[in-house]
């Protein structure tokens, strides 16, 4: 097990390195220059100074090596747009909000998605089933930025309990998290439902029933665990969906997270910021996939978590 974790850890670092490298070169391949602000009247000498400050005057290969060294020490360098702050500062100030929002929506989507899916499966072809699946279709088909605006317009404006925008108290989390979670929740609900329906016809469910267990025991102990495996599988992909969704949601609700920096940095060619946010998001994703694999082994004992030599 320890050997497996160690091996996976090395792979994670390798993956992140590949992402960093790809992003670095792609970023430099985009036309345009962070220092090219149009005709601002700055002198050539000033431009040259700035280029030197950001290492932009050196060949790309040298820049890359320097950059890798900095990333390895978690130093993402100064930002090119807010010149007074460096990237680390900005991320530290924005990350907590993004993390809270991300975790809140993931937790909400998993819990409510699984609940809805199970209830729909247990009441297959009955009212609850249809209502749940209608909710799921709505969740999938209405984009989260539309949902956010609807939430703001019809809920936040009318109910004082929910703030319209900004960040701070726990009430601030609810509406954006809900908008961000609805898509993943719908996907989880549909997946859980179809898996539950399949698992409930399995022979071992009949065995459990023949032992005289109650329906509740059968569902919780025998069915749910087996039905959740595919749900766990897509958790990695859903985390990615929540992360990318958060760029937009943070913007709509004016949440001071890192999503706004990510979006702005691309149009501004703010190289250090692009790199920093990419590294953070990809690390989160890679770690999430790792957690998913560990969960796999815990849920299904047939999946062995060790390298082949063991």
């Amino acid at each position, binding site marked *: 097990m320890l050997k497996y974790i160690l091996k996976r850890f090395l792979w994670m670092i390798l993956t992140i390195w590949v992402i960093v490298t790809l992003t670095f070169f792609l970023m430099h391949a985009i036309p345009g220059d962070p220092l090219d602000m149009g005709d601002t009247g700055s002198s050539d000498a000033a431009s040259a100074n700035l280029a030197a400050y950001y290492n932009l005057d050196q060949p790309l290969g040298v820049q890359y090596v320097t950059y890798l060294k900095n990333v390895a020490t978690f130093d993402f360098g100064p930002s090119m747009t807010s010149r007074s702050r460096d990237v680390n500062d900005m991320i530290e100030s924005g990350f907590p909000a993004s993390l809270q929002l991300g975790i809140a929506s993931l937790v909400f989507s998993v819990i409510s998605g699984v609940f809805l899916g199970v209830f729909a499966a247990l009441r297959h072809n009955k009212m609850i089933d249809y209502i749940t699946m209608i909710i799921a279709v709505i969740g999938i088909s209405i984009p989260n930025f539309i949902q956010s605006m609807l939430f703001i317009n019809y809920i936040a404006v009318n109910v004082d309990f929910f703030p319209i925008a900004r960040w701070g108290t726990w009430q601030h989390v609810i509406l954006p998290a809900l908008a961000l979670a609805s898509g993943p929740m719908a996907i989880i609900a549909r997946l859980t439902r179809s898996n539950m329906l399949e698992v409930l016809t399995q022979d*071992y469910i009949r*065995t459990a*029933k*023949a032992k*005289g*267990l109650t329906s509740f025991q059968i569902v919780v102990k025998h069915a749910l665990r087996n039905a959740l495996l595919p749900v766990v599988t897509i958790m990695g992909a859903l985390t990615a969906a929540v992360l990318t969704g958060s760029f937009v949601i943070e913007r709509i609700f004016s949440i001071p997270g890192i999503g706004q920096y990510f979006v702005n940095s691309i149009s501004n060619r703010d190289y250090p910021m692009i790199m920093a946010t990419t590294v953070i998001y990809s690390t989160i994703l890679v770690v999430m996939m790792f957690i998913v694999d560990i969960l796999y082994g815990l849920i299904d004992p*047939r999946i062995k978590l060790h390298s082949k030599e063991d």
Partner: protein
Amino acid sequence: MGQALLEINELAVSFSTQGGEVQAVRGVTFAVEKGETVAIVGESGCGKSVTAQSIMRLIPEPPGRIKNGTIHMNGKDLASLSEKQMRGVRGKQIGMIFQDPMTSLNPTLKVGDQLTEGILVHQKISKNEAKQEAINLLNLVGIANPEERLNQYPHQFSGGMRQRLMIAMALMCKPELLIADEPTTALDVTIQAQIIDLFKEIQRKTGVAIIIITHDLGVVAQIADRINVMYAGEIVETGTVKEIFYDPQHPYTRGLLDSVPRLDGDRTQKLIPIVGSPPDLFSPPEGCAFAARCDYAMDVCLSHDPEHTKLTDHHYTKCWLQDKRAQKPF
């Protein structure tokens, strides 16, 4: 004859499908005495498994439902119990073993959990006592190192071992009746023999009555005291093992016995099948269900359903040929 443990009377089970109502079981009557082994044999789709699952009320409702008849266990009618009362019967008074041990155990739960969860529901005992009981039973069914095995998962057991687990599981609460639904079908022949021996040994040690459902006449000959031959949802012949094997009276029973390959005799001889296929249970025929495939069918067979004719104390058959009104051939 002792007191009957289980008495099934005129049991009829139907499934409603889009194409109409399938009458899977059409008036089955039989009894099981304490400590005896009763076999139900018949080809696929004759209603033997549905009969067994109806006793446990395990047929999915809907689409299935018990249309008619009673199932008395120790004088209590299982067919009319509530779902909650029925839970008290399942596993406790009747244990059940299913056909495929590979899929009948939950792959994600430890074997120990699966063995003990039933007894923990039915009896007020501690987890340790339940575990001790599981160890005793694993010893009884011949699984070595029971204590270690309890912490393993089903995929760490072979097919034969899993069927032993299923048997141990069904015996946890010391039921009076064990229903084994094709318990040897999914196993290879040597393992089959071991499992059959195990059934016999368990019956000797615990005195449990067994209903064994199979289409394998070899299994039946080794284990059963009495045999019910089912065809198209009905019992067409019932008798002791000797009566059925040496003196079969229903043409279907004879056809079944004839179709068993013989190890002695001419190897070049082809198998003798029963020609044709069973009737459509959406609309069972008016007369005898077997008439269309029967070499001895008479006019009366096509128009009138035969009654059960008593041949000896245990031996009954549902065939016009044996009817008292039938002409004696000689």
